[in-house]
């Protein structure tokens, strides 16, 4: 091949596109942003099994029930709460979130007792609750200065509601991971006595339940919470002895989480009056109007729970990989990949015995892998399963290059450009159908939340797409230029 053919080849948009994408991918992996300290890995993101760390998969102990009733919803909720001893929350006009694992059969008589019936029953929590769990978990993780944490809500296919939350912490062992998730802060309520002095009222263990942010008649956001009898008693005594009941504005109530003030406000006049006559168990802390009020209320709710999740969670799966083992796996998969490429090279050489065909084949395959990694760097972390997908793509990739080569080289004769294009078109037809099937076959796995094999499916699909749209057309061009020399 002389330099003129090479220039013409590069000018062809198919070949140029491959070159551009390879360069772009290399820039994405190594230069944007530059990461010399990571060596060959560049900016690729690795999954836990390759970088070391722990994962926990937790199931929400909660069900969502669609109900129908002629009576009052408030009564229904009230009855459910007392008989189940669990929080029950109305999430929209006909759905209740029952924060307890309870079967449909157990619920039915309870609903019937309130003149209501169950329309649908599903495990899970409302998206709102799920987001809150996610927020609390992120807050806990961030508080410990860990950046490399992934928290994902998972909805099983066929269900509308998130049922699991999966947390992945890089570089953390299992015991620490469980501690982080289970750890609760120390919540305390104090009352201002004189000046800036405060006095202890109660700790977070006296709080029995915490509501979700709600708006009162004046449009102010607030979070309601209930106290135990002892807590309510302590609260009343402190309010009376400190003088908060008589002069609320001079005696703020202060809430602290791990000794940091998270809320401070005077006693409400109505409440002060109620406290005079007796203890009050249900309280509400208001945070103000508008979006900022809502935001503060949401944060306060988390603080009131002292880092406890609104819904109980059960660990249903967990795992950990020590960093050293991850490193070893990384080396192993690199060897596996190189060996796969090499064996494939030997096999195609055995078949064609023509470097002019074999080398472009391998080069195109390599380009495909680089482009794949370049895209994956932005959308998909590489875990062991994803790497298996990558190697599987090498297999299919070469497959299809063989189809093109054999189709074009029919009878060993080099065809005229016209005939060439016709044959290439036919080969491409085969490839396109094959690619469509792989795409369809892997799609369910790629879309399913629960599979840890999403990486495998996504890499395979991407590989097939890059193959059909970018690298196979380029290979067709290159092989034509080589054959017609």
């Amino acid at each position, binding site marked *: 091949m002389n330099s003129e053919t090479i220039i013409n080849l590069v000018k062809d948009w198919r070949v140029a596109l491959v070159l551009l994408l390879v360069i772009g991918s290399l820039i994405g992996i190594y230069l944007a942003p530059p990461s010399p300290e990571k060596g060959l890995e560049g900016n690729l993101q690795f999954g836990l*099994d390759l970088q070391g760390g722990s994962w926990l*998969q937790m199931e929400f102990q909660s069900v969502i029930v669609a109900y129908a009733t002629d009576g009052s919803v408030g009564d229904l909720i009230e009855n459910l709460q007392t008989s189940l001893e669990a929080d029950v929350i109305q999430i929209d006009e006909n759905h209740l979130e029952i924060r307890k694992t309870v079967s449909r059969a157990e619920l039915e008589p309870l609903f019937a007792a309130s003149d209501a019936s169950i329309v649908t029953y599903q495990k899970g929590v409302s998206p709102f609750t799920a987001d809150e769990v996610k927020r609390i978990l992120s807050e806990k993780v961030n508080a410990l200065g860990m950046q490399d944490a992934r928290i994902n809500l998972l909805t*099983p*296919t*066929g269900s509308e509601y998130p049922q699991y939350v999966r947390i992945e912490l890089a570089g953390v062992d*299992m*015991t620490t991971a469980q501690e982080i998730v289970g750890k609760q802060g120390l919540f305390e309520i104090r009352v201002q006595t004189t000046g800036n002095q405060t006095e202890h009222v109660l700790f977070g263990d006296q709080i029995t339940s915490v509501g979700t942010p709600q708006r009162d008649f004046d449009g102010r956001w607030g979070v309601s919470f209930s106290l135990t009898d002892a807590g309510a008693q302590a609260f009343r005594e402190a309010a009376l002895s400190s003088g908060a009941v008589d002069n609320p504005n001079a005696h703020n109530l202060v809430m602290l989480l791990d000794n940091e003030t998270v809320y401070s406000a005077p006693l409400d006049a109505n409440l002060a009056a109620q406290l005079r006559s007796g203890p009050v168990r249900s309280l509400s802390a208001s945070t103000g109007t508008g979006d900022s009020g809502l935001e503060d209320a949401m944060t306060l709710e988390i603080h009131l729970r002292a880092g406890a999740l609104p819904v109980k969670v059960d660990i*249903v*799966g*967990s*795992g*950990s*990989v*020590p960093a*050293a*083992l991850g490193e070893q*796996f990384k080396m*192993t*998969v690199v*060897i*596996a990949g190189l060996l*796969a490429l*090499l*064996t*494939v090279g030997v*096999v*195609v050489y055995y*078949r064609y015995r023509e470097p002019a065909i074999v080398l472009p084949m391998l080069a195109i395959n390599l380009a495909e892998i680089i482009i794949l990694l370049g895209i994956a760097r932005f959308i998909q972390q590489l875990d*062991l*399963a994803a790497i*298996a997908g990558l*190697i*599987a793509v*090498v*297999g*299919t990739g*070469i*497959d*299809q290059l*063989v189809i093109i080569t*054999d*189709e074009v080289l029919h009878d060993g004769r080099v065809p005229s450009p016209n005939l060439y294009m016709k044959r290439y078109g*036919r080969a491409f037809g*085969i490839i396109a*159908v*094959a690619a*469509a*099937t*792989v795409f*369809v*076959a*892997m*799609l*369910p*796995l790629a879309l399913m939340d629960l*599979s*840890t*094999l999403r990486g*495998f*499916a996504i890499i395979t699909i991407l590989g097939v797409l890059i193959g059909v749209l970018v690298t196979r057309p380029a290979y067709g061009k290159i092989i034509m230029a080589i054959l017609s020399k």
Partner: protein
Amino acid sequence: MEIARYDINKYSPRQMVVLPLVLLLLAGIVLGYTTLTTGLPLTPGIDFAGGTAVTAFTSDSRETIEATFAGYPLLSVGEGIGDGKYIQFGPMEDAQYRSLVELINERYPDAKIDQIGETFGKTLQGQAFLALSFSFIGMAVVVLIAFRNLVPAGAVVLSAFADIAITAGVMQVIGIPLSLGTTAALLMLIGYSVDSDILLTTRLLKRKGKLDEKLSGAFRTGIIMTTTTIAAIAAMWVVATAGQIQIISEIASVLLIGLFIDMMNTWMLNAGILKEYILRSGKK
């Protein structure tokens, strides 16, 4: 290569389809029997049945490991090349699991541990079943649209089905459990198997020329295709198995079995049906 010397034109369509159909029947019996006795067509692995899997690198012998974990529901101890060990436990209570983790951390601090709860495993099972069904239906629709002809498309779908069923049968016989990894491999097989089937069908139906020549041409290309794939997967299997990367090793072994089964199904079952179809429609 021995296989390449097989003369695909020597046999009648009837002879060609006998072996795959017999194997399909046998696989059906194996899977059916397992379903009747256990409720599932394949023995589920830890992903689906719940349990704990541990990958450790230790010079301890299998006996030592078995003795160490005697108080736990130990299922199996697998050995790789070098010191790699793959230890599996059945589902256990939370407290027992915690003490197991402590024991592992003490004995083998560099071990990889994965645990799946029993009910969660059930959920995963259901999801995997959904994925397999959707994949298969999707594949059948694509093939039907591509060929718009019932017999050739049916042959492709049948041979893809035979691929999965026979591979699953072989898995059950040699003891590869059904896990997330092997489910993914079975799905991948749907994609792989259709590759060579489509090549065969396109060559035979859309090219002009003598049937015998087209068939042996397609066969030559098809065999080299599957061989390259087998080569890549074999390399992956060897390295992953030696390095105790269980999930890749599982995916690779199922793909390897599947690719060999696929060679048979494509060039005997699918080719046989297609040949009969072409011969019949030619006589008209």
